[in-house]
């Protein structure tokens, strides 16, 4: 999947789960500030990702993700690794 495809899939879930305006989400925006995430909300972010992409998120994986672009790249890496594993 490309990052654009990842973003197109993720954004509706983020808008739904965190009840924010779609327009606020852009690749350079800060993930934590935009979604107004506190420590509890990261648990729900894990649920959103695991439910929709099928891979396990390890505790602490999200800690170094600053922007949405970083977030999409992280998901893309995991999805592609998952696809490769399935093809081997």
């Amino acid at each position, binding site marked *: 999947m490309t990052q654009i495809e990842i973003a197109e899939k993720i954004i509706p879930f983020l808008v739904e789960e965190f009840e924010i305006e779609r327009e606020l989400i852009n690749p350079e925006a800060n993930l934590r500030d935009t979604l107004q995430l506190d420590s*509890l909300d990261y648990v729900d972010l894990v*649920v959103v990702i695991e439910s929709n992409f099928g891979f396990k998120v390890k505790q602490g994986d999200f800690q170094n993700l600053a922007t949405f672009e970083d977030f999409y790249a992280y998901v893309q890496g995991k999805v592609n690794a998952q696809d490769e594993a399935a093809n081997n």
Partner: protein
Amino acid sequence: MVNRVVITGIGIYSCIGKNLAETTQSLYQGKSGIILDAERKKYGYRSGLTGFVDSPNLKGVLDRRSRIMLPEQGEFAFVSTDEALKVAGIDQDFIDKSSIGILFGNDSSAQAVISANDIIREKGDTVMVGSGSVFQTMNSTVTMNLSTIFRLKGINFTVSAACSSGSHSIGLGYMFIKHGYQDCIICGGAQEINLYSMGNFDALGAFSIREDAPHKASRPFDRDRDGLVPSGGAATVILESLDHALRRGATILGEVIGYGFSSNGAHISNPTVDGPQKALEMAIEQSEIGVKEIDYINAHATSTPAGDASEAKAIFNVFGQPGPYVSSTKSMTGHECWMAGASEIVYSMLMMQNGFIAPNINFDNPDEDSAKLNILAETKETKIDCFLSNSFGFGGTNSSLIIKKWENK
């Protein structure tokens, strides 16, 4: 230090009304809130009868974080508390400058527990329950959520005392204020109403199976009753010291003058006469009034033969004949369990404010014990200056509250 304790706000979300106005009308009309729930039958309940009220839509009212931590009974309690605070004239600005407490009755959160464990079993991963689940599952869910939503800074805990939880919450609030530890406490009771909330209670065979006539099923004190009907919702009662209420210019609705309690010290579910009688006598003694001054008793009577008979004997032993008017609003609402002790204070307050006594509907024929009481089968327009409300629960926990009309003195 001994303070007088007054009621300045009430709120209700029940199967006979989602606010005070609707509920007053239902009480006056003797309207039943009981339905037959086909889902319960499919799920394996012996009785599909239940009181029913829709969950409120709180999207746009509460933020996402607050909503995902609230179980059904927490949503009910938010609505009843919001209404009670408005009646009391207490806004967020006042709360932020005060040390208001919360004591709420709640004794289960079955749906949240079952839903969470269904997810864990299916996914094999605890994280998939999300961040709100743990705050929904605990017995203290109502107080932990409402204290966060309303930013309360006083006493904060849940009272779990089976079907007298709501009544004890008001009794404890009364004691905290009377003895000077708090100026103002949000008291009440909440009861979940979902499919999972009553399965194991249904297992005891204590529920009415008069499924062909749901409105006739709950018939406390009637000779032909066959069991209780479970129900739910939430009720809130705002207690304040008289000084605190006068200082802020609040409208005073009533005064709590007695709280009696006892434990049967006997069987876990079979009632006794002595236990309830002790609570009744303690409340009356504390209130320093004579039994003749009590105009109305809102009975605990749930529509079970043993429970109704024991309470009828206790009331007769204390009040004799002719005793005060008696009715059980459970004839309309069903048994609101953890909420009942608080909701029945709200129902009785509405009667006192509006000059009537709600009927004990379906009271067609008395039995030997109920024949000795002054039970009203029809609505009666009459002045209530003082009422008593009984609540009894599993484990033999008993609570009686006495409330007096406020007459500026």
